[in-house]
Each structure stands twice: as C-alpha cells, then as structure tokens.
C-alpha cells in the first residue's frame, strides 16, 4: 500500500467482515512528537488468542477465496519500516482495535493520501455501519460520523452519490483547516 488512506480502507474491511456495527477510525498526527498513529477500533466479533496470534501471518486468512491474507502484514511492514509498529487488541465478543504507529518524519512513512475520499467511500458502502472518523492534528480534533450525517440529512443520504461527493469535500476542507495552522505541515 502506497498511502495511509489505502491501509485504512483495507483494515476497515476486516472490521466489516467481523460484523461490526460501529467502526471508529482515528488518525492522530503530531510533528512535535514525531508520530502518526492510526487506530481502527470495531465492536465486531473479535478474535480468540490463537486467531490473534496468526493475524499478522501472511499465510493466514479467514477467507476461503484465497490462501493468503496480506492486509495486516502489509500495514505492519510499512509501520516497522518507518520506525513504528502495529499492536492488535482483541477479545471474542467485544471487538478489535488495531493501532499502527509511524515516525512522522521518517523517509519511509507512506503519505496520508486521499483519506477523505477513503472515509467517504466507506460511509457510502456501509450504510448500516456507523463509521466514525476523527482526525487529530497536534491535539486539535475534527470528527464526522455516519449517524451524524443520517441525522442531518436523512437515512438515505449516505447512499446518495451526490451527497457522498459533498461529504468528501467537507472532510477535505475541515481536515485541511486543522492541518493548515500548524507551521511546517506542508512539508509532509
């Protein structure tokens, strides 16, 4: 994966397959601390200890359509290459939280990419799951969620292509705003 946004798209698919009703994606960037932390937390069926141990093994997958499962291994690879790592907390019946950390200024850290587009597509594709996205930059938080959109614009809003394109724009504008007033952010 060449962008953090694509990793988000990929890891969230695991949560969807785990039957999650709510998926919380948080991207926390701080040049001051030199960290970028991605968290994907879901309330899906979770994993037992054995599955959890195998989760980052590329030769393990819960699918039957193919024999490899590369989502978490690829995330782990990119995180390790940029001086960070991946931790997974999970228990059956409660859900799973995947945390990937990166050194912000590491030359091998993938760029954020089109995170707003990714979130918009996830909201569009999973109308019955509450997707909550929070973007934190040096402590300033901005969030949006499926339930918030439904409340403002109606249940059907999240499957409307025009609305979803506008949602993408809203995410873009707001994230750009909280990133903008931080000197030096344009470098990354």
């Amino acid at each position, binding site marked *: *994966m060449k962008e953090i*946004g*694509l990793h988000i*798209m*990929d890891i969230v*698919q695991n949560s969807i*397959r785990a039957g999650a009703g709510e998926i919380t994606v948080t991207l926390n960037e701080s040049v001051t601390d030199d960290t970028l932390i991605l968290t994907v937390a879901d309330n899906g069926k979770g994993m037992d200890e054995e599955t959890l141990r195998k989760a980052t093994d590329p030769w393990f997958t819960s*699918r*039957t*359509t*193919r*024999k490899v*499962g*590369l*989502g978490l291994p*690829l995330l782990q690879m990119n995180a390790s290459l940029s001086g960070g790592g991946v931790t997974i907390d999970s228990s059956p019946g409660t859900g799973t939280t995947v945390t990937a950390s990166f050194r912000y200024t590491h030359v091998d850290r993938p760029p954020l990419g*089109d995170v707003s*587009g*990714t979130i918009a*597509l996830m909201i*569009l*594709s*999973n109308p019955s799951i509450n997707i909550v996205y929070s973007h934190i930059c040096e402590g300033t938080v901005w969030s*949006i969620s499926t339930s*918030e*959109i439904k409340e*403002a*614009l*109606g*249940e*059907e809003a999240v*499957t*409307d*292509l*025009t*609305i*979803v*394109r*506008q*949602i993408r*724009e*809203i995410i873009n*504008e*707001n994230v750009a705003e909280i990133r903008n007033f931080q000197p030096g952010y344009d470098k990354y």
Partner: protein
Amino acid sequence: MEKLKSLADLKRIREEAKVKLELRVRGDNPEGLVQVKVAMATCGIASGAKPIMDFFVDELDKRGIGAVVTQTGCMGYCYAEPTVEVQLPGQEPVVFGYVDRKKADEIIEKYIKNGELVEGIIPVNYEKID
C-alpha cells in the same frame, strides 16, 4: 461554488435546491437501480480499486445515472484486480476484470447506458481455489 464546511451547510444547500430531493425515492426502489460493486480487499486496493470506485461515484453522479455503488470483498479473482461487478436492473450480475479508468468509462457508456457487452468479462464458471 461556495465551499462546504459542515453538514449544516450541506443541509441548507440541499433545501435551497429541492430539485434533487426526488433522488431519495431511489432508496425505496433499489431493484430499479444499477448496482456497481467494486472489489475492495487487499488485492483490489493494491491494484488501484479505490481510484476506480472514485471514478464510478463521480461519473455516475455527473452523468445522472441512478446507481448504488458499494464495495465487496475478494471474489478470488486477485489476478484480475481491480474487478467490478455490475448488475443492471432485472439482469444477472457481470464481473469485469482489469478495470482501469478507460475500461470504467467504457462500462458506463456501453454496458450501463446501452446494455452492450464490453470486453473483459470474467466467466462465472471460472474455478476458484479451495
């Protein structure tokens, strides 16, 4: 166009231009819509499925075609990603492989608009691994 900054802005704009509100009716009748499903597992994403899904969302909306665009998982055609499943109302779904923007445009213009088959269909009886 003024910049959209919040859901409240979006709500106001949509209320000012009520023209598009009839789109909501679509939700009551999903069978009458074209269904586009982009395979979005690791294999698909790594092969560029996300920009292809963006393309379908943008272009179907701009060209005024009522469609439901969603994601699926891996269907076992990893070699042919990005793959896109298209189901026209009342018809069997068809899976297209190696979809790039040019192919996506062709799928919209020929298959979705006119029902003409285009090259690149993956036969349904193709054998999956166990």
